[in-house]
């Protein structure tokens, strides 16, 4: 056989991911069918639940916000060929940055500054939590995959201890922190649009969505427009060449992990400053892991990450709707879909490549003959 040609770029960037996504949904559909429900109906319910019902779009975008942050965290690390599974923990401790910033600044500064400082501090805490695995990878050779997993558990233990102990709300039994001061609250979408006299349905969507969009832009600038981003990508693609080019590889690894952690840490602003107004137990709810699926599906590109986040936001919100409409399928379906998407667009990303390549070659050749 002759040498197989690589896929054309559009097929590689759009068609192949789309096929992988379809495969994931197809297998999930089979599972739904096996347990005796109609997959098509389930899909319709999810779509309605995610976009059509009043207020549902707000919920979808609220989830989307979380996934943008964690997706960016995973994608940043991927660009340096690092696998940050620790988004969950980094986001979790990110909340400490907010609690710290509110304690230090809220009494003295006006709201806008407090909010900005909180945002910075949540990123810093997330960054610090990722810095250690990054350092250990760069300088001591311990694999960042394993250490970030361990750091998730450490974060969880730390937060349980803090929320049930030193930080617990006075007079409360359940492990949660005090409410943060009003001037550190991020305005909800309802409030925000209210300022302009626009009426929108109540939902947890808040201004952190805007921060997420800014983060997408920052990520794009960082990776493709800065010299640091160039170095990150160079290290990720070819460490030998990076070394030849005078790039300090271990320094780049540490910086990349730090930035990655900062993105994850920002998740806390959505949950703590926007919705709960306090740190509660397990507020990260697995969003950090979903970030892996988001980054894989979004091909580590901001536009891809945005749409993948939107998809997962819709899945989470629409999945909740399944609980009401069906007896035997629940929002846990989303876990399965997530797993399938990670499987097909991650581990099996190139399974369909040879077949697709063959078909495309035939189709394109056929087209040439017709000319």
């Amino acid at each position, binding site marked *: 056989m002759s040498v197989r040609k690589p896929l054309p770029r559009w097929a590689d960037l759009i068609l192949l991911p789309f096929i992988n996504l379809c495969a994931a949904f197809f297998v999930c559909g089979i599972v739904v069918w096996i347990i005796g429900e109609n997959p098509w109906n389930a899909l319709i319910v999810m779509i309605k639940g995610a976009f059509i019902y009043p207020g549902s779009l707000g919920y979808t975008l609220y989830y989307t916000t979380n996934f943008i942050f964690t997706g960016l965290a995973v994608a940043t690390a991927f660009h340096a060929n690092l696998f940050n599974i620790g988004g969950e923990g980094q986001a979790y401790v990110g909340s400490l940055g907010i609690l710290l910033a509110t304690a230090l600044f809220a009494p003295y500064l006006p709201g806008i500054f407090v909010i900005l400082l909180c945002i910075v501090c949540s990123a810093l805490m997330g960054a610090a939590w990722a810095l250690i695995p990054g350092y*250990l990878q760069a300088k001591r050779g*311990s694999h960042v995959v*394993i250490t970030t997993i361990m*750091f998730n558990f450490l974060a969880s233990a730390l937060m349980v*201890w803090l929320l049930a102990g030193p930080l617990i709300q006075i007079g409360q039994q359940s492990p949660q922190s005090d409410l943060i001061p009003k001037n550190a609250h991020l305005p909800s979408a309802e409030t925000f649009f209210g300022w302009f006299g626009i009426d929108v349905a109540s939902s947890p969507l808040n201004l952190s969505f805007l921060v997420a969009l800014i983060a997408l832009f920052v990520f794009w600038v960082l990776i493709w427009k800065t010299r640091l981003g160039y170095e990150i990508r160079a290290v990720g693609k070819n460490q030998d060449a990076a070394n030849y080019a005078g790039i300090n590889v271990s320094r780049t690894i540490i910086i990349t992990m730090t930035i990655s952690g900062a993105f994850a840490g920002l998740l806390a602003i959505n949950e703590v400053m926007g919705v709960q107004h306090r740190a509660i137990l397990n507020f990260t709810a697995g969003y950090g*892991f979903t970030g892996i699926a988001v980054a894989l599906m979004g091909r580590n590109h901001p536009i891809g990450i945005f749409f993948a986040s939107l998809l997962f936001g819709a899945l989470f919100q629409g999945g909740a709707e399944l609980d009401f409409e069906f007896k035997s399928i629940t929002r846990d379906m989303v876990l399965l879909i997530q*797993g399938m998407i990670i499987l097909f667009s991650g581990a099996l990303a190139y399974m369909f490549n040879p077949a697709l390549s063959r078909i495309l070659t035939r189709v394109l050749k056929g087209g040439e003959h017709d000319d």
Partner: protein
Amino acid sequence: MIEFFFQFLWALDATLRVATPLMLCAMAGIFSERSGIVDISLEGKLLSGAFVAATIASLTGSAWLGLGGAICASVLMSLLHGFACITHKGDQVVSGVAINFLASGLTVILGIAIFKRGGQTPTLSSDERFRPIELWFVDILDNIPILGSVYRELISGHSLLVYVALICVPVASFILYRTRFGLRLRAVGESPIAVDSAGVSVTWLRYRALIVGGVFCGIAGAYLSISHGANFVREMSAGKGYIALAAVIFGNWRPIRAFWACLMFGFLDAITSRLQGVDLPIIGEIPSQLMVALPYIMTILLLSGFIGRPSPPSAIGLPYRK
């Protein structure tokens, strides 16, 4: 003194119960990782094993069929892992993450579909489970002062699966170090090309390693839901797969050492609840979260070369391309 002795005995007894699934999963991890395949999907295999064991035991009333089903389910997960990262040379970590998600999702979805109890399975009666078995001579040995108590409380009175786990450790060690399969398995994790050039199939060898791991994880899952527990509860593996992975690393990818690591982690777990609220001399009260975090902290320190030098299999994580 007697009081303390029995306290200690019970702690060891609890240690053994907690450590049983860890040991089995750690052996699974060792087989997989020694063959060069990163296995963070231990958690998912454990969970699916637990679910299928409880489901089948509940539906058929047979603990043995439950165990068999658990092993099959877990092996299937292993094969999926192999399909992704051996056959298709996919990223082993990504595949592991995917399998953990699939297990979390499928166990609950199927649980609800079959039993309609919000993801739990019905509570099993005692003859649908592996019950504690009393070993021989307990009554006779009871008359001997210390030994008798040790025998009755610690050695006797566990479920069959605990003894299976205990036997699995030397068996794993034997397979790894004394058999042809073990030699080849260790070799393929060090240098797949050396194995290939010795005329042995790398693919089939790695698949077999994963299958063996699947069997171990299946037994561990069955222990969780139809021996230690009496039903399946969502997310009942609760990170034990990851602790087992930590034990694998802590044991430097060797069965006997990993066994001690499991016992140590199990012991930490067992005394955590006992130490809660207890003021120790000098140190004061130890937060239970610190105890929970200790295995991870120790593993990180070990991995970073601060205590000893870990020596993972040389070819781990790399798909084999000719």
